């Protein structure tokens, strides 16, 4: 990938193009919209059958959090198709250009850290101090992996004969499913999504139900930071049903999961049928 990359004008033009394509939405509308819509191919959509679910604030059961969509298996398959379609173009964007998007996302997380921390506390219950630390971690993770766009090279090996060159290079895995738990609802998605994107993969992100709102917010930040449509898709809803669809779909090349042993071994067993990397 480095071989195709010329620093300077070309990079700036491409990144600028993506930034212009990204949807700019007013901040106060954004929360409402993301909390009630899933993200597929750059579009904020209703779940297939329009179903939604609201969690209560675990520290104050009288307080209902905004409802999040309950995506269907069809939505999951559409999300995989969107990620598959977006993968070739995303992987040919020079890595430093992909890094620009992550760097912008890092800055946006920093700018909105208090709001994001409060959302985590309302949704998951941890103290505000713990939520702030987690948001700061997400900011740093995007910054770290943004820099990976400048570093990911390859290797050249000694040849066996005259006039031969042996080298190896890294290619993206392809389309990856990212399934995350509720206990670190922005840091764990960050540590999976950031490397997935910088190395040229496209993603279907399924946050845990008690991390749906912050998950959709993070997806929204990445779109606003300049991700092209379909590079990151985010669906929320019932874990077992959706993860089965996202794991068994043959277009999926990798599954990154953090959660319980029981669910983890189940996913591993499902994934092995297609020899999908877990």
């Amino acid at each position, binding site marked *: 990938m480095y071989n195709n990359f010329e620093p300077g004008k070309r990079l700036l033009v491409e990144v600028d193009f993506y930034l212009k394509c990204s949807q700019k939405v007013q901040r106060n509308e954004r929360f409402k919209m993301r909390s009630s819509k899933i993200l597929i191919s750059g579009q904020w959509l209703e779940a297939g059958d329009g179903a939604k679910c609201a*969690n209560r*604030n*675990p*520290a*104050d*059961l*009288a307080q209902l959090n905004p409802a999040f969509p309950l995506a269907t298996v069809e939505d999951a398959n559409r999300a995989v198709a969107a990620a598959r379609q977006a993968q070739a173009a995303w992987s040919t964007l020079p890595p430093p250009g992909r890094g620009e998007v992550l760097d912008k996302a890092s800055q946006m997380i920093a700018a909105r850290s208090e709001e994001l921390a*409060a959302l985590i*506390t*309302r949704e*998951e*219950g*941890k*103290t*505000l101090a*713990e939520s702030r630390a987690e948001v700061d*971690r997400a900011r*740093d*993770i995007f910054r*770290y*992996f943004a820099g*990976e766009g400048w570093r*990911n090279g390859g290797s050249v090996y000694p040849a066996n*004969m*005259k*006039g*031969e*060159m*042996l*080298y*190896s*290079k*890294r*290619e*993206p*895995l392809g389309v*990856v499913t990212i399934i995350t*738990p*509720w*206990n*670190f609802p922005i840091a764990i998605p960050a*540590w*999976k999504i950031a*490397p*997935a994107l910088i*190395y*040229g993969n496209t993603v279907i992100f399924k946050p845990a139900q*008690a991390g749906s709102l912050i998950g959709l917010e993070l997806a929204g930040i990445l779109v606003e930071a300049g991700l092209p449509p379909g590079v990151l898709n985010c669906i929320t809803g019932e874990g077992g049903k959706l993860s089965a669809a996202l794991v068994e779909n043959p277009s999926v090349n*990798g599954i*990154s*999961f*953090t*959660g*319980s*042993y029981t669910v*983890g*071994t189940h996913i*591993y067993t499902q994934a092995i049928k297609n020899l999908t*990397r*877990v």
Partner: protein
Amino acid sequence: MGGKNPLVVMDDADLKLAVDLVVRAGFGLTGQACTATSRVIVQQGIAKQFSLALQEAASSLKVGNGLESGTQMGPAVNQGQLDTDLDYIKIGQDEGAKLLVGGKSSQEGGYFIQPAVFDFVDISMRIAREEIFGPVICMIHAEDLEDAISKANAIAFGLSAGIVTRDLHNAFTFADRVEAGVVKINEATTGLALQVPFGGFKHSSANTFKEQGPAAIEFYTRTKTVYVGHG
């Protein structure tokens, strides 16, 4: 994919540090971290002193709404998790462990539970082997370093493990022999640096790829080797 992370407290440990690490890693995030401390393997000579200090720290922790200032521990995430926590408190008592403090659902209006400490937990008990994912500490007594390592390694999980000691031999022997993907010497079992590999041993991971830092590239890429004959 789950943990039942031990913190070993040796006789030569800084007692205040040991208690602080258990409070932070055992009760922080309401015990809902995969790297949370849930087993404290304490050497006989310091066990009594440590147990008293930990009880005091646990009972003075302010549990409440995380949005309010001064709150040190929030609620369980949902009714299911709260029920699991309370079930294990009962299981521990039925198995014969001694509940020193906490373990009751506390305030109305939220999924609150008081941080709990069990003493005299045997490594064969369910509360010593199964992940609870709540603010429940199990104290297990150990004769010496050898016994502590053997008890640390006696279960199926192996995510994070810590030791509190001032002795280099204890520290490095533990680091070499404990079956865990993350080892902390005089630090909390929770809390990760983003620039280093992270992942568990045994049932704590799929045992395929690590995550984070320089390890992330291994999972998210595939390597292509190219032979170019140009002679």
